[in-house]
């Protein structure tokens, strides 16, 4: 599959938001500034690369696949410490590791790393796949937030307002993506 095909697949049929249930919450769920978008894509690409290579060359040969979450935790702490040191050197404040605002991002990064790391073996595809999966997530959250904004204008029954409506909208998106996957991408070898 070409890189363009890979990006389309990970944006639609293989989208991590619907396949892994990573539904964003609140009105800021789909909001990304340009710099944070680039940082998120880079983080996803590097997480996929590091996790994929470590899984393939470190854990699998020794039959230690079960240690993957410990490995990812170590990678996470290492990356966070490096980022914190960099920001401190630049004189910028950094958020603490236990900041609740970072939890959803951590979850998405691990889901991307798990999804891509187990699917590809080459360095290039791990990098591109990680970034494409993150891009697909950002696009899907943007679609979902646009749907939610539009639905605010509609007369929705009171019990369905808020979280239930968000999940119903995600369900319809998942159906649409599954249709694209079944009709097109599942016929390709990935």
């Amino acid at each position, binding site marked *: 599959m070409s890189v363009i095909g890979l990006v389309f697949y990970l944006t639609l049929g293989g989208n991590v938001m619907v396949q892994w*249930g990573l539904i964003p919450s609140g009105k800021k769920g789909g909001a990304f500034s340009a710099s944070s978008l680039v940082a998120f894509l880079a983080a996803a690409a590097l997480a996929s690369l590091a996790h994929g290579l470590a899984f393939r060359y470190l854990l699998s040969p020794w039959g230690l696949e079960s240690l993957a979450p410990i490995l990812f935790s170590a990678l996470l702490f290492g990356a966070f410490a490096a980022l914190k040191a960099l920001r401190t050197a630049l004189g910028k404040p950094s958020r603490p590791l236990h900041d609740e605002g970072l939890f959803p991002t951590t979850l998405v990064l691990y*889901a991307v790393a798990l999804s891509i790391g187990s699917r590809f073996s080459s360095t290039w595809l791990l990098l591109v796949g990680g970034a494409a999966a993150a891009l697909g997530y950002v696009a899907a959250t943007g679609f979902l937030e646009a749907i939610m904004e539009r639905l605010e204008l509609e007369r929705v029954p009171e019990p369905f307002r*808020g979280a239930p409506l968000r*999940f119903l909208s995600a369900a319809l998106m*998942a159906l649409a993506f*599954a249709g694209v996957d079944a009709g097109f991408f599942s016929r390709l070898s990935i």
Partner: protein
Amino acid sequence: MTIDDGRVPAGPLASIAGLAPLLVFSNSLSLGVALGIAFFLAYSAAGAMALLLPARLGRPAVFAFSLTGAAVVASLTASALRLFDPFLFEAAYGRVFLSVFTLPVLRACVMPETVSDRERAIESLLWGVGYAFLTAVTGAVRQFLATGAVSTRFGAEHGSLLPIFAQPAGAFILIALAAAAFKVVIKAVRGSES
């Protein structure tokens, strides 16, 4: 994490939304039980370490140790699952690993700030049991809706009733209906109190 419009307490609903990665994958009883047990063990380990580690370590260090502890427990759970049922392990290992990074577990890794928070450890443990039970029940319900039967053996599902419930979309629909029902119940309870 705020997932509703503020008219219903965000706690339980928000945590159920945080469990969505597990609920979406839990489409059979065996998968649901495996994921529920993995989640509960990771959640309990994280909560216990965050509670018992000395406060002088500082919140970032306690968080890091608790998360590592939860990851170790998830690794052990995955190893046990591999011995118990290799096919189930192959199908579920990604989600078992991901259970460490679900929002309830990450929140449990944060050291309690106040004495009253510390005294609610049993309550947190009961919530963990409830979330694990919910994951298993979701699996059983989705399996029944999708195939018309519930089987304790992984991969033994036959028949077709409403196949959409085996897909992620089916999980989202179930979560939405459950959340709406929860809001109605809360509203009714509050109405009867006033």
